[in-house]
C-alpha cells in the first residue's frame, strides 16, 4: 500500500517537474499517468499491491471531487449573472459530444475496423488474434 502510494506520488512528482520545467500544456498528473503506463510496460504490468491500491483509490473517486465542488460557493455571483449561458453551454455541448462521438466511432469502425467487436476479457499475455495489423488496414473488411 505504502509502496504503491509512493509510486503514484513519485510519478506525479516527476510529471509536475517535467511539465513545469519544459512549460508543457499538459497537467503533471497526466504525464505521471503516462509514465506509470510506461513503467507497467517495462515491468510487464502492475504489481498486485499497485492494482489493489489503484482500485481502492479509484472506487472512491467521487469522494475526492467533493472539496473542489464545494468551491462553487465562491462563484454564486457568477452563476447568478451567467448561469443560463453556463448551463446551456454544458447541456448543448454534452448532447453534441455524445452524438458526434457515437456516430464517429460507428463510421470509423465500419471504415477501418471491420473485425469482431472487442471483448471485455482481460488477456494478460499476447493476444492470439492480434496477428494481422488491423490498425493500418485502411482497406476495411466491412
Amino acid at each position, binding site marked *: 500500500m505504502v509502496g504503491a502510494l509512493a509510486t503514484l506520488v513519485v510519478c506525479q512528482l516527476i510529471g509536475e517537474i517535467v511539465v513545469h520545467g519544459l512549460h508543457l500544456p499538459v497537467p503533471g498528473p497526466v504525464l505521471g*499517468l503516462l509514465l506509470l503506463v510506461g513503467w507497467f510496460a517495462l515491468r510487464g504490468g502492475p504489481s498486485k499491491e499497485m492494482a489493489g491500491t489503484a482500485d481502492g483509490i*479509484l472506487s472512491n473517486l467521487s469522494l475526492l471531487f467533493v472539496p473542489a465542488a464545494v468551491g*462553487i460557493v465562491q462563484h454564486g455571483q457568477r452563476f447568478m449573472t451567467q448561469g443560463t449561458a453556463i448551463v446551456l453551454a*454544458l447541456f448543448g455541448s*454534452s*448532447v453534441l459530444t455524445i452524438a458526434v462521438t457515437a456516430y464517429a466511432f460507428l463510421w*470509423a469502425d465500419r471504415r*477501418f475496423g471491420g473485425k469482431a467487436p472487442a471483448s471485455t476479457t482481460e488477456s494478460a499475455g499476447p493476444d492470439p488474434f492480434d496477428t494481422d495489423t488491423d490498425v493500418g488496414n485502411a482497406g476495411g473488411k466491412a
Partner: protein
Amino acid sequence: MMGKNLGDIWVYLSASPLLWLGATLVAYLAGMHIYTRTNRNPFANPVALATLCLVILLLVTDTPYTTYFNGAQFIHFLLGPATVALAVPLWRHRADVRRGALPLAIAMLAGSATAVAAAVFIANVLGADKQTVLSLAPKSVTTPIAMGISERIGGIPSLTAAMVMVTGMLGAVFGPLLLRWLKIRDDRAKGLSMGIAAHGVGTAISYTMSPLAGSFAGIAMALNGLITALLVPLLLALLM
C-alpha cells in the same frame, strides 16, 4: 455558561482542519447512503448531495471557503495520485484499445474537439465572460485533469470543478435517453460517448448498460484527459 463553552469549542474546532475534513467525509457518506437508497437515481448523485450539504453548512456558519479547504485539502490532494492511478485500468484494457485503436482514436478526437468547441462557442455566443469560457473549456474531463487544464489556460479551477460536476450530472441523466433516441446499439460506441461527454459519472452509468460499454467508457475517460489537455490550447487559439 454552557453557551460560552460551546462557543470555545467552536472557536477551537473552526481553526482546526479536523472539523471540515470530518464534515466532508460524513457528508459524502450521507450522500452515498441516499444514492443507494434511491436505487442510484442519477438525480441523487452523491457528490452533488454532499456538496449541497456542505455549501449550506458553510453559508449558515458564515465560514469562508479557505477555512473549509484548509481541512478538505487532505482529500483534495489525493486527486493527483488518483489521476496517475488511472494507468491501472488503462493498462488492463490495453488489448481492447489496441484492437480498435484507429476507430477509437478518430472517435476520441472528434468527441473531445466537439466537447470543447461546442461549450466555448455556446458560452461565447450567450455572452459569458472570458474567465467563464476558459473555465468551461475542459469541463468534460475528469475533475483532477480538468482543474489542471483550467489552471494552465487561465480559467478558475474551482469554477471548472463545479462545471465538471454539472456536466457529469447532465450526461448521466440525458445521455442514456439520447443514445436510445439516436438508436445507437453498439456498446462500444455507447461507452465511448458517455465516457467522453460525462467522465467518471458517465463511466459509472455505462457499467450499468454492459461491462463492454463500461470498459470503453473508462478508456474514453482516461484518454480524453490526455487529448483534451493537448487540444484545449489549440482550440482556444482558434476560437477566442
